[in-house]
């Protein structure tokens, strides 16, 4: 039996467990760190005993939604990035870069704008998911099966531009400047002032998306060897594509509809973790989910600690870090090619 192979198999679970533990720690840190001092344990004690004390209110109304959403949205973005990179066999695929997040944002804006958001509460996450589905299908139609780096980036530019133009159109035609302002701030992406009910609405969609994406792990491994070989290993590629498009749309659509567009987490995180799982696309999924959650929670804690006011929007921060990263990655791929 191959000792090296067994060692690599064994190294995966400690890595996943460590990242899972870090995710929990980051979530707890996100609960504990904020603008007012909060004794999390005392607050939890109050909540458990049904006392509506100020610490309990801060915890349940402010900190908990922010931390839990950071965790779930980060997981969605990291996992979706890893899955899309596996499907398109391209390390530049990311829900933001390829336009799926832009589509989701547009879907959510349309729901805002049309007033559907007030009509029934699931409208916003569903609108986000619908926008993400349309963008993912458009991407697939544009790039075909194996996406060259250039095609992928250009398709992403096209979809992002179009979704951006339609979003701008909605703002342009907005009858109420205050509403337009509101939408613009929402588009920048943030975890601030979200509520637990919003989490409960988006979480089922995200969970369903996660399940679909994670179930594709063996097929993504097989796809490393190309489409013919993956088919000869017993995988139905048509079904795989549908599963991944639906999974991405549910995970990212649900996430974006609550937090606005937060880019580059799905690009950076899988890229950093890939060498640690031996470049295996299936193994990359779970760890990228954890990595995404850690990255987003860390960024969200950082914006609270930075002495900059008004507080920086999370989407702005991830883009400020992620865009130079993308630049460097393209440069490296170009030199390798």
């Amino acid at each position, binding site marked *: *039996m*191959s000792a*090296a*192979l*067994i060692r*690599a*198999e064994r190294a995966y679970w400690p890595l996943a467990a460590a990242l899972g533990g870090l995710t929990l720690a980051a979530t707890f840190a996100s609960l504990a760190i904020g603008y007012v001092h909060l004794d999390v344990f005392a607050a939890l004690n109050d909540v458990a005993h049904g006392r509506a004390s100020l610490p309990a209110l801060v915890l349940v109304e402010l900190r908990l939604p922010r931390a839990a959403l950071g965790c779930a949205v980060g997981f969605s973005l990291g996992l979706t990035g890893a899955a899309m990179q596996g499907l398109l*066999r391209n390390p530049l695929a990311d829900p933001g870069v390829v336009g799926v997040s832009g589509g989701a944002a547009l879907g959510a804006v349309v729901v805002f704008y049309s007033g559907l958001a007030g009509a029934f509460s699931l409208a916003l996450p569903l609108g986000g998911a619908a926008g993400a589905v349309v963008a993912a299908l458009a991407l697939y139609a544009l790039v075909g099966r194996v996406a060259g780096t250039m095609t992928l980036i250009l398709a992403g530019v096209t979809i992002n531009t179009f979704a951006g133009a339609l979003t701008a159109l909605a703002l342009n035609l907005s009858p109420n400047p205050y509403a337009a302002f509101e939408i613009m701030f929402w588009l920048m992406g943030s975890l601030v002032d979200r509520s637990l009910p919003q989490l409960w609405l988006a979480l089922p969609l995200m969970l369903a998306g996660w399940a679909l994406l994670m179930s594709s792990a*063996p097929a993504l*491994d*097989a*796809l*490393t*060897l*190309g489409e*013919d*070989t993956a*088919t*000869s*290993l*017993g*995988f*139905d590629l048509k079904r795989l594509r549908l599963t991944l498009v639906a999974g991405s749309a549910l995970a990212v659509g649900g996430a974006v509809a609550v937090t606005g567009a937060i880019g580059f987490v799905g690009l950076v995180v899988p890229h950093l973790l*890939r060498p640690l799982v*031996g*470049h*295996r*696309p299936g193994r990359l999924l779970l760890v990228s989910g954890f990595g995404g959650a850690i990255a987003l929670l860390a960024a969200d804690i950082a914006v609270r600690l930075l002495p900059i006011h008004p507080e920086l929007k999370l989407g702005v921060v991830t883009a400020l870090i992620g865009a130079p990263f993308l630049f460097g990655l393209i440069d490296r791929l170009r030199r390798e090619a």
Partner: protein
Amino acid sequence: MRIEATNAIVRFGEQNALAGVDCAIGPGEMVALIGPNGAGKTTLMRVLAGLQPLQAGETRYDGRGARDLGRGELARRVAFLAQGGEAHWPLRVDHLVGLGRLPHRRAFSGPSAADHAAIEAALAAADVAHLRARTLRALSGGERARVLLARALAVEAEMLLADEPVAALDPLHQLGAMALLRSVARNGAGVVAVLHDLTLAVRFCDRLIVLAGGRVIADGPPSVLTDAVVAAAYGVDALRGEHRGEPFIVPWAATLTPTPLP
């Protein structure tokens, strides 16, 4: 397992890639599929592997259709090695060979002892065991080809369809790979290999299928590869001889007058 293609017709646009091919391969057979560029060899391999939709005709596996057999069972029983294989991520060699065990996986369980044994056997057979901890990008073209062959062997299927398995290999490893494929056949599996080296074909294979213009122009023991067939298929004259009781055949020059297909 016995794979049987009947009247297989495949068109790409106006072009007939396969113009009604009948062929059957049984267990324990070592078959060379030969013919000039564009003869339809790769298309026929994809047809036999159940990867290529047919305009007409059918492929049967022990008398059953691919759909009837199911994706999973087909994947366990027929291994396919693609031409000029690729790996999109720089996987470690042993992980890549392990992908051949995917058809045997069970949900929520890691690799079994049988999987480990199959991976080890395949690594050793393809002479890549010493490369196991390297990544694919750190290998030469020939080493990579042997790793991909090991991946196909790891399936431990009843039928191995290998599209140009020796094209990138040095002479020693060409001989080694052919001997390996023959031993796979001697152990009871059917083997079909697309080859361009006529000597390897006549020396190592029990049977040749010669394809030209999307049709089978000869099918039988190595003796079917007559001068007329070589001329008709490739448009070349061949030098023939024998060394230590085994035949060799070397393409020498273009034929002076083009020979029509029989």
